[in-house]
């Protein structure tokens, strides 16, 4: 029992700061998924995909991460905890996709084919394919799962679709090239990418109630995990605007070069943001707006944070570089806090594409092979 206090403090030390969250980044122009360790800020694995991955989400039972490869017409299912590719499914052009809050529907927009597909969520059976206006982009549901709202980028419109009837109910002009849309406290908020603001829309009739200036190329909006704050990305002015979710008052503006796009949150509340035009992601401290960047693949788009206590173990039989002789299996530096030098650099630094710390991504590692011989799996298809 003499060693108990020491053991306890060691355990606390290890458990406290060492949250090695796993960050999934979809490299849309590189046909791959980068996995970043949040403590070392290093790429620990790269999963190859067929063509062009854009968005990802958890399945309703939260057991699988579903990645849409729109160019490859494929859904990739990954165990979020182990990063193991469980299976792949043929699927028509999965661009932006969301499950309805009640878990009954999966709606998928097909930007290039001008169609919106409504699927039965559990079986992923196509219920209806709606031909809609030019470039259906993002979508959002009403909390009661009765309606889905889709932005039509090429038609300046927002389209409301009744999910029970599976028919459009109204469409309304909301601004030039609308992109992201979310439901926020009884209203729809739409990012107006061809202009410089968000539009606030009444979901009952599509009436435009107000516009709020944020910055040129306002793209999409993400609520914070506690729902108190909204973060909106503007691509041309390359900034993140921080809004009070209740009043929609702009509380802060963070200039982050590189074209911020999608945002995910880690358990500490930090923002992980894909920077579309510079092949990097940014980690932003919500208290200060200070950002640090990490290199990933080309044109990173969707992003997801899997909370973990420990770093991802190496792949069995994977072609990882050999561990130096004498080094223990659990590497102490994996658990050490990020060194001071690796902490953030101020956002909006004059050299936009230079990182605060140059973190070299690890060698791409092939995805784990599926069990059985390839021809057996092929025959079984």
């Amino acid at each position, binding site marked *: 029992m003499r060693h108990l206090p020491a053991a306890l403090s060691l355990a606390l030390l290890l458990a406290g700061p060492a949250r090695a969250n796993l960050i999934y980044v979809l490299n849309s122009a590189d046909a791959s998924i980068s996995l970043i360790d949040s403590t070392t800020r290093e790429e620990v694995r790269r999963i190859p995909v067929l*063509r062009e991955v854009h968005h990802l989400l958890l399945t309703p039972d939260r057991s699988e991460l579903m990645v849409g490869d729109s160019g490859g017409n494929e859904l990739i299912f990954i165990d979020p905890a182990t990063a193991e590719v469980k299976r792949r499914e043929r699927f028509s*052009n999965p661009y932006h996709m969301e499950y309805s809050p009640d878990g009954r529907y999966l709606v998928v927009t097909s930007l*290039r084919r001008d169609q919106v597909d409504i699927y039965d969520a559990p079986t992923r059976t196509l219920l209806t394919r709606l031909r809609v206006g030019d470039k259906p982009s993002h979508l959002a549901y009403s909390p009661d799962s009765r309606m889905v709202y889709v932005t039509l980028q090429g038609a300046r419109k927002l389209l409301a679709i009744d999910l029970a009837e599976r028919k459009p109910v109204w469409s309304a002009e909301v601004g030039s090239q609308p992109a992201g849309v979310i439901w926020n406290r009884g209203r729809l908020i739409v990012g107006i990418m*061809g202009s410089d603001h968000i539009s606030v829309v009444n979901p009952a009739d599509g009436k435009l109630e107000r516009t709020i200036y944020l910055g040129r190329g306002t793209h999409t909006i993400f609520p914070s995990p506690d729902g108190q704050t909204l973060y909106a990305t503007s691509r041309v002015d390359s900034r993140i605007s921080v809004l009070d979710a209740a009043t929609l008052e702009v509380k802060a503006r963070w200039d982050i*070069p590189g074209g911020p796009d999608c945002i995910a949150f880690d358990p500490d509340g930090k923002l992980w943001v894909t920077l*579309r035009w510079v092949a990097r992601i940014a980690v932003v401290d919500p208290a200060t707006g200070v950002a640090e960047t990490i290199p990933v693949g080309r044109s990173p788009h969707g992003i997801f944070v899997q909370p973990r206590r420990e770093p991802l173990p190496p792949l069995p039989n994977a072609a990882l570089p050999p561990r130096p002789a004498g080094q223990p299996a659990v590497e102490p530096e994996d658990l050490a806090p990020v060194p001071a030098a690796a902490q953030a650099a101020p956002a909006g630094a004059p050299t936009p594409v230079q990182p605060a710390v140059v973190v070299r*991504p690890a060698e791409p590692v092939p995805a784990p092979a599926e069990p059985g011989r390839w021809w057996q799996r*092929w025959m079984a298809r």
Partner: protein
Amino acid sequence: MDAFSTESFTTAWAAVTGWLFETLVQPAFYALGLMDWAEDAYDWLDFGLFGLLGIAVVYLVCRPLEAWRPVEPVADRRAIRTDMVYTFLARLGLLPLIAFVLLASLQSRWEGWLTETGLLPPTLEEIFPPLRHSALLAFAVYVVVLDFGEYWRHRAQHGFRWWWALHAIHHAQRQMTFWTDDRNHILDDVLAALWFGGIALLIGVPPGQFPLILLLLRLAESLSHANVRLDYGRIGERLVVSPRFHRLHHGVLSAGAMGKNYAVLLPVWDWIFGTADWNRAAYPRTGAPGTDEAMATGGWLRQQWAGFRRMALALAGR
């Protein structure tokens, strides 16, 4: 190509394209109300800059070689300048942009139609699952398949009279240098894009995630036209098309349907289909006797016009 150089190249490339896009391209697209094309513009910027880099690399490799061991002295600099116009038009200019816009929308329509009918277009990786786990191997297979397609397109360019009328522009050059690679009639380029794009639609070509390898492929093709006395040896000649191998294809006796050495990258196709000439001592004069003089020495516009005229005559049976 070790991991470090690939990575430094990728990082530097992302920095340059990102800066250009954010400072010049995106603000312009925003001002023109074209933000929904921003992602395509980003892709195209990549393509255009990559073309520029490709020309620079080809120049740096081929020019010293041409100075070192030329096959023939340069007598007609004007003819070379015309080829340079072709190169810049093809690799940076409007032509790839038109092909890109046309084929991208064609592809989504084709795939849309297939999904409507309940089918989804396959990719080679789905047909041969081992390719999934090695992106490099998959890429190599795509290159082989597409190169095979190019061999047969080239055979057709020589075999059909109306197509030869266009392709003769490429062969009319008597002062062949590495710039001659892109010397093609605009309609010939469109046909090539449709052919290549068509095969790409069928097998689902992967995105350009191998910039360094693509650079090497373009280099090999330009080098095969270079004015240099160079072959790759007994074995090398059978693996990759050399300046010697391709100059024989451009020889005056090889024009039209009488041709040899059609391969673009891999000579194995000529080997298999009996059209190879392995004579390593031969460096014939180039050109296409019997074609309009405008095709050999005219400027870009005159050559284009001559191509259309000849094609019309061929189609009319004259």
